């Protein structure tokens, strides 16, 4: 089992969600986050005062999935979230030790 964490541009969320559903990903958790990477922030000017805004809004998508689907899911995310411009985001893949479905007590891959 793998946990995929993708930080993407907010306006790409719908596209990524649809593409993931098409390859059999059945659930995800989405959070609005702020951060910076190489893109850095932007500058705001109010009369004479300049402020650098370091943290830009992004969306964090977390997907727990099987070892079989994981590589395809990563591929789909990278393909659909890509604009080619700086600030497209990153994808991290982590191993999952165990998973439990609370309603049924199922464990392992069947809980995902």
């Amino acid at each position, binding site marked *: 089992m793998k946990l995929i964490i993708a930080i993407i541009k907010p306006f790409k969320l719908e596209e990524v969600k649809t593409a993931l559903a098409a390859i059999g990903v059945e659930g995800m958790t989405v959070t609005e986050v702020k951060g910076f990477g190489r893109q850095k922030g932007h500058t*705001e*000017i*109010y*009369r*004479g*005062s300049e*402020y650098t*805004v370091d943290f830009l809004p992004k969306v964090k998508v977390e997907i727990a999935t099987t070892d079989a689907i994981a590589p395809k899911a990563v591929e789909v995310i990278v393909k659909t979230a890509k604009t080619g411009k700086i600030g497209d985001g990153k994808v991290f893949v982590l191993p999952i030790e165990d998973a439990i479905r609370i309603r049924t007590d199922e464990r392992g891959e069947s809980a995902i």
Partner: protein
Amino acid sequence: MIRTPLLVRTFVTAGLCWIASLSAFAQASAPAKASAPTTEERLAALEAYINNGDPGKALTGVPGPGHNGWMMTSAALVLFMTLPGLALFYGGLVRRKNVLSVLAQCLGIAGLVTLLWWSFGYSLVFGKNYDSAFFGGSEFFFLRNVTSAPNVDYGFWVSHNVFAMYQMMFAIITPALIVGAIAERMKFSAIMVFVTIWMFAVYFPLAHMIWGATGLMNGVWNPYAKITAIDFAGGTVVHMSSGWSALILCLILGPRIGFGRDKMAPHSMVLCMVGTGMLWVGWYGFNAGSAVAADGVAANAFMTTTLATAVAAFTWGLIEKTFRGHASILGYCSGAVAGLVVITPACGFVDSTGAVIIGVFAAVVPYLACTKLKAKFGYDDALDTFGVHAIGGTIGAFLTGILATASVNGNLTGAAATTNGLAKRVAQGGLWLEQLKAMVITIVLAVVATVVIAYLVKAITGLRPTEEVERQGLDINEHGEEGYVT
């Protein structure tokens, strides 16, 4: 009871006879009683109403409905500039933790100044029994003798009580303007004490000097004015006095914690824009209302106010677009307010061309003050009260001296102006020098008084809240409320 039929008869008789023959008309009228006004006097009084002149004995003590109505509307418009215009304009520009503190300061000042105005302020500005160039008199303390009958020293057709309330709205907004420079870091109690003393030390004497019947610098109306300066709606009294005092107070107070390091961007440009729109609309009462009549001078002031403001807003945006790549909302708002400030002393004395010239200056000079001057000297004039009101008011007072013309305002060559020499200066030049004198007196009074009052208040209440309070925000600590409950 018999007034209406008499009035009707007056009109009918006049219509028939006035042009034909005055003597025939007089003969046709029934012989008047010794004390009752003649039909001619009645007619003259009605003409005086149309011309905003002296009604004579026929309509003594009676307000004229049109002029009175416009002045009540104007008074409400000027209050609207502070509540909520200025409150929102400033409120939007501070950080969200301090938005209520600004609203509270505007509300607190409105109540406090009303009490000061009622008790002594109005009389000290617009009374005259002290026969002084610097203070008015004591005859109107506690608004005694201020009734619905006009005070002919200031307006033949406007109720004295309406005039007093109208002028009170100016007294309210002036100290409220100072709040912009010291926003986010001054104790509420300290502001209230400061304003109380400042009104007596700066506003009341200055307003009397400029607008009082016996005032030192009232060039238009005081035949014995030593300095024949002109200020139609308050460039010196309102904007220079508050702006220069604001600079001094903000220097004594020191910058906000984290100034130049933390992000102190406006928390709501939307509120700021809403407030700006209210200021612009309310300013018609401020400027056109300063004619104290619904007459041609008011009409001209209405036009010049519009032109200068629109030109200044547009120009400020254009400067930003050219040199920075973006025309910002704050830029447009700043330009509009600057245009309103700079046209204020001039609006009743300049023509449309003068207004457009003023609009351009109003954008360029305050823009440089807010961006370059402030950056160079590093003072924390939080919301640019100095850059917009002091600098704007100062160039406005000066440009008024250059651009004033009697063609739009006959009072510039009226009886008082002829006696004291103003009429000659308007016609032949030299008015700018009188303006310069008024500007120097205003700046010296504002600066010196503010230094003294600030240190006095520091000794009484202290000026700043604790560091913890300032970091956490004034709203929750000083007022026990939050602007936005989440």
